[in-house]
């Protein structure tokens, strides 16, 4: 089991300016498949997600205790460079956030940051990333068009392509479809599942149906604590804890 664990959270406690939002969470996220974090708003699921690539570092007043291991290395260890971690652990946010530039430049941004590529290599990498995000066919004729000219769903897939371009080992999704219509949501979900077959994917969602559709495993959080973590099917059909059952039945706001 141990070699299959990608992230290992050990007694993770997080606080913003002294206010504890995540309390003593211990959790092993397997390397294969999609893991979903569910729970009501303010339960700390996004905070935990952002601990996985140290995106919380830039939030003023954030503090953390406990350990977060990525392949056995402590992410918050003294010798760790958050910049390198973020290259290994890609992230897609709740609202699509393309840079105000062309489609091509959006995908190329991370590549230019980390690699010295010729124009041809760059074009090839951009195409691969766009294909991996199932966006290539829709944008191949207008790569120089502004990214903001795309629809909301396309913009979100562009952000996924942008993250995939730097070849991360892990992809984190923070409610990636919450601002999208059902058709676009379906496409993003398909993409998440597809990626889950090739890499570690962690997705935060408030949409239970979405979690049940895309996730192999699901963790349920409540008030900053991990209540239950299990295979998705097991968690949804046979919850072990009364809080989980209450939440699944919609009795917990």
């Amino acid at each position, binding site marked *: 089991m141990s070699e299959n664990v990608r992230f290992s959270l050990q007694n993770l406690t997080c606080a913003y300016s002294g206010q504890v939002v995540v309390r003593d969470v211990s959790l092993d996220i397997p390397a294969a498949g999609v893991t979903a974090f569910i729970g009501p708003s303010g339960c700390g699921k996004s905070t935990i997600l952002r601990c996985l690539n140290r*995106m919380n570092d830039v939030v003023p007043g954030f503090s953390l205790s406990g350990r977060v291991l990525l392949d056995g290395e402590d992410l918050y260890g003294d010798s760790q460079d958050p910049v390198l971690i973020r290259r290994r652990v890609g992230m897609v946010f709740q609202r699509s956030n393309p840079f105000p530039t062309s489609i091509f430049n959006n995908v190329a941004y991370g590549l230019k940051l980390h690699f010295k590529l010729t124009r041809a290599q760059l074009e090839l990498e951009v195409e691969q990333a766009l294909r991996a995000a199932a966006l290539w066919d829709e944008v191949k004729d207008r790569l120089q068009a502004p990214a903001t000219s795309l629809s909301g769903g396309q913009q979100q897939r562009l952000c996924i392509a942008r993250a995939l371009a730097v070849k991360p080992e892990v992809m984190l999704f923070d409610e990636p479809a919450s601002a999208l219509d059902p058709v676009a949501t379906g496409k993003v979900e398909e993409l998440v599942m597809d990626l889950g077959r090739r890499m570690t994917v962690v997705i935060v969602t408030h949409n239970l149906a979405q979690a049940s559709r895309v996730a192999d495993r699901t963790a349920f959080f409540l008030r900053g604590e991990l209540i239950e973590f299990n295979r998705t099917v097991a968690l949804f059909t046979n919850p072990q804890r009364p809080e989980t059952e209450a939440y699944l039945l919609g009795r917990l706001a």
Partner: protein
Amino acid sequence: MAGARDRARRRELWAKALITGAAMAVLSSTFLLFAYLLWEVLPLLRPARLRPLETVAVKGSVFAFPGELPGSFWTLSQEGVVRVRPQGEAVRLPQVAPPLTAAIADRWARWLAVSDAEGIKVYRVSLRPSFVGQERQLKLRLSSPFVAAATEVKLLAVGGEATPLVLGVRGGVTYLWRAQGGSLEAVVLSSQEGHAAVVNEAGDRVWLASDRQLTVWDGGGGRLATAPLLAPATVVTLLLGDLTCLVGDRQGNVQAFGLFQGEGGNFLLEGFATFRGPGPVLGLAPSPRSKAFAVLRPGLVQVDYLTSGKVLAQHAVPEGARTGLAFAPRGERLLVTEESGGAHVLAADLGHPEATLGTLFGKVRYEGYRNTTWTWQSTGGSNAFEPKLSLVPLIFGSFKGAFYAMLFSAPLAFLAALYTSQFATARLRQWVKPVVELLAGVPSVVVGFVAALVLAPWLSAHLGAVLLALFVLPVTLLTAAWLCELRPRPWQLRLQERWERVLTLGLLLVGLGIVWLFAPGVERLLFPGGLLEFLHTRLGVSYDQRNALVTGFALGFAVLPVIFTLAEEALSNVPESLVNAALSLGASRARAAWTVVVPAAAPGLVAALLLGFGRAVGETMIVLMASGNAPVLSFSPFSGMRTMAACIAVELPEAAYGETLYRVLLLVALLLFAFTLVTNLLGQRIARGLRRRFGVAR
């Protein structure tokens, strides 16, 4: 219920009307300001005009000249009686022996020379307005004559200051008569026959034109310089100020000559302009107000302007008009006399001949200059001074000042805004922003005062240290940055901000200390005679105490808050989500700021720079006090400048309403207004475009 709704609706209507009204008021006041400026500037384009006023019979007179009061002039009859019109006072010339055979006067009719039965008599004429009861009348005074017992003389010219000089031809020889006591002594000036001559007001230059040459003599009969003519001369006169001699000839040319002193003290007579026209030149009259002059040719009188070389106006006169041409003492009327005894009075409205598109913006050769220049010199010591109204030095000065201000403030404001918006803690930002914005509230007169009276002398005393600091401080800053990177890792998380600040400030202080300690020594070592001396003697750079560096610093101080505030806003308005996206892709905070935030905020930054530039161009008080106000065309950081705004502030209070300078200054105001309007509109447009651009992403 219905009543309450009605009231609410009425209130809304009122509010709407009020807001619309206020907006319209702002718009219309801007428009009115523009319209007012335009209204005051447009008369610059008014063309000059010659308009016939009256024709008077002056039969039997040998001379006529216009007087100072409207409609007035005076005549001299063959019997030697001077009549002042319209009052009709008649005075007989003292000691005259009629009949008169000829009479001439100088350009302004201060000296009158007559040829009577006994010889030549020269009178000092004074015709001044004075009150007789309630009425203003011309009061005539005539001195007792200077006498020369020389008959059959063709009089050429009279003039001089305290005592007269007379030129005349007798028997083919040109004589000069000079006053010795009450009589005139003759010297032979030239063995050739002169055709026309003029004496300057100081009485120390005599210009004599013969068949093919123009010669200048000093008052004692010494020859100074000679220049060839295109054709035999008919008339010679000096323009107002006595710098330019005009020679009219039989072929219709009017040539302009200037007398320059060459190296070694010898004189050079240079022809620098020629005005052509049909028929021989019969008369020339300089305007007593400007560098305009009237030319009489058969059937036509026209007024030309020397500097611009333009014909201002022309008017047809009878063919027989051939004896006299003169401007009234105030230049508003022109008198053309005919041999047959008629005098035509023309109203001469010359407009604003000093201000043409060519003189305002082009390179102009002014009187007394040997090259064309762009010069702003609106007022001089005497009435004869020609205003030099080139706007080029002022526009240049404005842009130079703004450029140096931007050179100082733009990088500082931009980097400060970048730091404050991207890297500073919330607490530091809460401090920095209001403090910088407070800077904007410092009255510009205080900034200007400190710059002019404290900074300028200090800078000239410590220029070496400042230049050294420009080199040392960036090096210390880079060292600080390098040291920040070297620190042990664990500090990075917690002590980051504070340590960086302490280290940077400390190193800056050390750098300043180094500069302070070593600058005098370095300066002594490199420039044994001092840096300013070195600049002056070796590089030929003159150092003005109030210069572009001082102005740039002071003006930059005023502009910095504008750029900082707008740039900070533009940078802060870049959505955090974009920074997060960049960070999540593995960019460092600095890389994210540089590669995502700055390009995304670029339109806002451009707008900030534009508005800052607009402010710098329009700023008045600081440049007025710190720039030295010399309208020079040098880009050197060590020389001053005169900006458009400062020029208006300095000169408008001195300019008489309606005169050319007044209108040109308002033209400068109009240009300034248009420029700041355009930069502001452009800046706001770009800023608005930016907001629209993030409308979706935010």
